[in-house]
Structure formats: structure tokens, C-alpha cells
């Protein structure tokens, strides 16, 4: 289900870091030894076995991150991102696995397209990457893709992300059929008749700026529909990039009622509100849009209490000339792989809105479980998927420093606290900074 370039596995000792694995319940200053890409020993004063030693003094060693929502723009827009550049960006962000969305050109709706991507990833992916396939052919919302064959070819799940599955009938069929594929269905919840021409959240700011609004109910009515269908069919469902308080309330109710529903939230929805759109900066334009203060508070609370189990960047690279236009003409989407941890550490952990351990869990085990992937963990015998973090180190986000081919980040020019010093993915060192 995940594909990566074959590289020799690493021998490594990380010495004296604060090991923090919320899943394993570990929090202590320890050494961690990796033999041939597998965690071989955890303890104090470990022998180095002549392995390379990385000094972790004053740093946090955690399970590496998993991003369930990345746009790699390949095939079709390799000028914006490639598998090589996107996975290198992810490695720099502390990720050991990412899932790529199928809304490419051509759309990933056949085993042929998926297989060529998998082959491509085996040749150039710096970290393991999985590919979601489309729910409907051409993401046109009319006919199901060959979900069984796509799963056999390695699809990590199914989604029409970028657009909703408008027809409730087709959505029901996708859920009914998903056990045949053995993969989860993930949905972009948007009711298109409520979001026509929308540019930003509908509220006081849109009223003042004159933008056509994307009301919260434009998302939440679709969330409620999809949760009802998933409950009726007793199938799991994953709700992507939730933004509205009403959606969180619906998800929470469905979970309480026994629906196997998971949800994800992006760093930008956790850090910003529609007030930030007053800048008219095209790098705060995304779908779903930045919402109000109450929505942001509800997202943070849901992340804290576990209603939302996953942080997803929705990394959406765009060519510079396509964002260098008036706000109203700019495409939706911002990048996020290289800044997610630092942004959330700065805007949520530092002000005390969320504990570091919770953040780490929601960036790693949470998203992995939502898609049935093995959660990264720091335990003897587990494959080494590690991130070494300097939570106190400040750095400035600069356009030239991105490994991504695109720089449409809402954080450009900002100073953030929290740096990734080392990323180990599938037993290989993939980033050192």
C-alpha cells in the first residue's frame, strides 16, 4: 500500500533525547538504537555497536509523522510538485509516510494510472507514499471506479477529494462496495449548491469584504449526509479537512452513535480564522475556507478530546504565477508539509492550547489508524520511523528554503518555533537539518 525507493537500512543510535511516544506511553530521556532499520534497543547508556551516533540532548524523539492528505500534483502538474520533491518536503517536515490524492491529470481512477505512480514512487519516493484512488471515474460523480482492481494495484483508500460525491446514491454504493476493496472511503464534504462561487467563509468578514460566502452549513449538511449513509451501511468513513463547528458536532454525535467515523483537520484551520482573509493574500485562500473564531475553537477542542484523530496538511502546491493574481482569481490551496509541526507547535502548543504529546499523536498514530496503516511507534522490534525535534529553536519561513517545488505557504516570512533535526522513515535517514 506504501511505495518507496529501495535504500539500504540504517544503523543508528540517538543518544539522550527525551523519547516521547504517546501510544507506547513512553516519556523519558533514553537512548534508542536502530539496527538495520529496526528499533533494536531502548534504554539508558546503550552500546553504540559502532553505529552512527546522533546527539539528542535537549531534543524530543517521537514517532515520525503521517500525513493522510497530500497533493503531489503528479501526474500532470510536475512543475508544481513531483513524487521526489513532495516526499523530500515531507521528510523535511518530519513525516515517515504520506497519502497522495487522486485529483491529478489524469485522475487516478484506473489500475493503469495507479500502477505507473507506484512504479514512479519505487524509483524516486524519499519516504513511503500511498496513493488514494478516485471513488468515481474521472471524479465525475457518476460511475464507481474499479475499486477492487485498484486496491489490488495498491490503492491506499478512495476519495474524490477536491470535490464532493454529490449523488447520495453513488456515495451509498461506494460505502457498500468498499469492503470488497478492503479500503476506507474518505470524503470531501461540500454541498455545491450552497458553495457556488464561494471565496471564503460566510460571515461578518465576507459581508464586509464582499466575497461570496461559503457557509458552514455548506460543509456540515454533507457531513451529516455522509455520516448517515456510513451509519446505515455500517462502514467506516473518513471525513477530510473539517472546518466548521457544526461538522464537529455531527461527527461527535455519529461517533457516539457507533458510526466508525474519523476526521482530520489542517494546520491552517487550527491556526487561522476568516479575519486573516482581510489581508487579501492569496495564500490564505483554501477550500474549505478559514472559518470563525468559534469554529477554530471547536476544532482545537475536538483535536484535544480525540473527536478528530488526525492532522492533515492538505498540502496543495500551486505555481507562483497562478497565486500571483487578485485573491478572487487565485486557486484554492496552500502548502504545509514543511511547516506543519512548527506552525502547530508555535500556535497551539506554545500558548498552551494543546499538549505536545497530543499533537504528536494526532500527527502520527491518529492518521495512520484512520487509514489502516501501522502506527509508527518507538518500541523494540518496530521499524524505525522517528523524528527528532528541537521544540525551542526558532526559524524564519523563507520561500527559497522549501524543498517543495511550490512556495504558496501562509507562513511565508513568519518566525516559527520548532525544528525538525532528523527524520527516519522505514529505517532510513531521510532528512537531517
Amino acid at each position, binding site marked *: 500500500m506504501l511505495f518507496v525507493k529501495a535504500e539500504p537500512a540504517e544503523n543508528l543510535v540517538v543518544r539522550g533525547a527525551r523519547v516521547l511516544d504517546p501510544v507506547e506511553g513512553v516519556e523519558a530521556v533514553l537512548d534508542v538504537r536502530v539496527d538495520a532499520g529496526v528499533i533494536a534497543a531502548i534504554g539508558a547508556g546503550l552500546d553504540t555497536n559502532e553505529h552512527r551516533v546522533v546527539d539528542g540532548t535537549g531534543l524530543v524523539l517521537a514517532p515520525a509523522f503521517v500525513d493522510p492528505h497530500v497533493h503531489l500534483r503528479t501526474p500532470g502538474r510536475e512543475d508544481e510538485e513531483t513524487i521526489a520533491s513532495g516526499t523530500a518536503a515531507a521528510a523535511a517536515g518530519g513525516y515517515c509516510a504520506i497519502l497522495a490524492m487522486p485529483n491529478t491529470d489524469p485522475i487516478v481512477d484506473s489500475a493503469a494510472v495507479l500502477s505507473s505512480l507506484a512504479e514512479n514512487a519505487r524509483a524516486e519516493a524519499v519516504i513511503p507514499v500511498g496513493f488514494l484512488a478516485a471513488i468515481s471515474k474521472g471524479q465525475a460523480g457518476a460511475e464507481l471506479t474499479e475499486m477492487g482492481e485498484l486496491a489490488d494495484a495498491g490503492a491506499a483508500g478512495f476519495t474524490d477529494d477536491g470535490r464532493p460525491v454529490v449523488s447520495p446514491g453513488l456515495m451509498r454504493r461506494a460505502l457498500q462496495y468498499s469492503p470488497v476493496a478492503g479500503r476506507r472511503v474518505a470524503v470531501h464534504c461540500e454541498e455545491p449548491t450552497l458553495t*457556488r462561487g464561494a471565496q471564503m467563509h460566510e460571515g461578518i468578514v*465576507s*459581508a464586509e469584504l*464582499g466575497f*461570496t460566502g461559503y457557509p458552514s452549513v455548506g460543509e456540515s449538511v454533507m457531513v451529516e449526509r455522509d455520516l448517515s449513509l456510513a451509519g446505515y451501511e455500517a462502514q467506516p468513513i473518513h471525513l477530510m479537512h473539517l472546518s466548521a463547528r457544526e461538522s464537529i458536532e455531527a461527527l461527535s454525535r455519529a461517533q457516539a452513535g457507533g458510526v466508525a467515523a474519523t476526521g482530520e483537520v489542517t494546520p491552517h484551520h487550527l491556526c487561522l480564522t476568516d479575519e486573516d482573509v482581510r489581508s*487579501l493574500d*492569496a495564500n490564505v485562500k483554501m477550500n474549505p475556507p478559514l472559518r470563525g473564531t468559534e469554529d477554530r475553537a471547536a476544532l482545537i477542542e475536538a483535536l484535544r478530546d480525540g473527536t478528530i484523530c488526525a492532522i492533515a496538511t492538505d498540502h496543495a502546491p500551486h505555481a507562483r504565477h497562478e497565486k500571483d493574481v*487578485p485573491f478572487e482569481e487565485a486557486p484554492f490551496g496552500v502548502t504545509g508539509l514543511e511547516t506543519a509541526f512548527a506552525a502547530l507547535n508555535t500556535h497551539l502548543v506554545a500558548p498552551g492550547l494543546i499538549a505536545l504529546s497530543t499533537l504528536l499523536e494526532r500527527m502520527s498514530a491518529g492518521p495512520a489508524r484512520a487509514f489502516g496503516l501501522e502506527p509508527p511507534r518507538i518500541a523494540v522490534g518496530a521499524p524505525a520511523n522517528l523524528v527528532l525535534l528541537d521544540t525551542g529553536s526558532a526559524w524564519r519561513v523563507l520561500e527559497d528554503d522549501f524543498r517543495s517545488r511550490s512556495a504558496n505557504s501562509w507562513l511565508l516570512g513568519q518566525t516559527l518555533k520548532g525544528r525538525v533535526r532528523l527524520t527516519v522513515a522505514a529505517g532510513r535517514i531521510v532528512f537531517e537539518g
Partner: protein
Amino acid sequence: MTPEITIMREELPPMRPPRRHLLSIEDLTRDDVERLLATARSFDQASQRELKKLPTLRGRTVVNLFFESSTRTSSSFELAAKRLSADVMSIKAAGSSVDKGESLKDTALTLNAYDPDVIVIRHAAIGAPQLVAAVTGAHVVNAGDGKHQHPTQALLDLYTIQQELGRIEGVHVAIVGDVLHSRVARSDIQALVLCGARVTLVGPPTLIPRGIEAMGCEVSADIGAIADADVVYVLRMQRERMLEGANYVPSLREYTARWGVTPERLRPGQKVMHPGPMNRGVEIDPRVADSPDALIEAQVRAGLVVRMAVLYDLLTHGPVGVPVEAAMEVA
């Protein structure tokens, strides 16, 4: 022979440093507005002279960049710049390189190579003036960006109200109609509230943006709410901005029946304004448009002197109230 021109001394608030741009009414303080209106009054008096042209902006270059159709705004900016002796270049999107797919940024950079002092821009997209301001060295004046802002319209509306009623503070203005698609309404609400007027929005709930009360106005769906207004400001039904099938109103016929401004719905002496172009017989009854209480032509005349004041304010560094020639030396 240089005519002897001075900006009239009035009770003026203290001068602030000159602003680089006029993108939104939000950029202005009440002092700024009062200074601009006072400057416009001086130009109004100068316009009564036989020789209307002033040397104030001699040697300055003003570029009018219009990506959307316009009669009033483009002609009045052009004439305002000419009355102040600036060199004016007016570019319309149709027939320019925009037809060849040139981006706004490249068009702006191209014009910037001529070192214009001011770029006046009208564009269908919100944020276009901000982009031009970011990539050029010129003072940028927003002459209307999508549904966002039209700050010089709001200033000329304030000017008109002040001239007609002698004050703005405490005046009750009812803005009637399609607020949702109206940049004029947004700028007017901000400007009127800034200057202490009372604003009531009247129209179908589908055409009043949700949450707009936060701008400091009242909202009513009942046309009866115009009864106690001093000024009834009629907005154009902007059919060209409405998405097909969006069903904002069941029909224009029903709109006109419920919210059309007719003589029967007005009381004598109530002033009527409209930013133009009018849809006679839709939002405004032709008898209202042609009545002596309609200030529509006064608005157009105000547009000229207000835009002269805006250009003057951006380009002269001396405080208003000193002779223009002296201000020129500083500039």
C-alpha cells in the same frame, strides 16, 4: 499666466502624513474624510471659474486602468486629472494585451515602467488594487474591485449629502436593494458610519449579506423602513454579477413591486441618490429619477471634484490649506 489658486482655509483637522494609496474606506480616518471633502469644496469653487484648469499636478502622470466597463468613474477620473494638469493615460482591458492573456501583474509592471505617479484601477476581482499596489511604485486608487470597495464613490456620496443637507452627522440614509453585489453599498456603509450617519439597509433578505449588521447598520426587509430616512440611496440590481439560477428574487417584477422606489413610497423633501447606471422601472421609478429631489446629477458633479481632491491628496505633501503652488514646491 498661472491663475492664482489657493486652497481655501477651513476649520481643518490636523494633517496626517500623506497616504500612499486609496484602496478602501477602511484606510481612512474621519479626519482624512473631512480633509478630502474640504479639498473637494475648494476645487468646486475653482470649477466655477471660467478657466477651469489648475496647474497643481503639472508634470505628474496618472494612468487609468479599467478592466470593467465604466462611464462615470473613468470619465471623471480622466477629467479630474486633466483639470489638475496631469498627463493622463486611459487604458481599457478590451483592445489591450489583456486580450492576449496578459496577467494583471504583468500589465501593472509594464505600466510601472513609465513611472506613473498614480494608477487608478477598476477590476472585476476583489484584491486587484492590492496586487497592483504591491507590484508597482505608484499611488494606487481603487476605482472599484468586484463586490468589495469603491471608495471614491463613497466620498462623492458624502460630499453630495454634505452639500445638500449641510451635514453628515446624524443624517439617516436608507440604502435600498441589491446590497449583496454592491461595492458601493459596502464603501458607503463604512463611510457613512465613520462620519456619524445612521444607515438602514432595505431589501430582500437574499440580497442582504449575512452578518452585515456588524458594520454598524440596521437591516430591514420592509420597504416601509425608508419612511423616516433623510436620504434614500437606491442601488442598481446587478444582474451581470448574479449567478444564473441563483434565485435571489423570484422575478424582477416581484422585486419592483416590493422594493422599487416609487413616488408613492417617498415623502416630499426626501432626497434620492443612485450610483448609476440606473435600471429605470426596476429599482427606481422614472418619476423619482427625474424629480427635483433626485441628487443623481449632483453626485456626478461631485465625482469630479472629489476625485480631484483624492489625486491632490495623494500627490501633494504640503498640508491642505496652504497655496497650491507652495505645496507643489514641497512635492
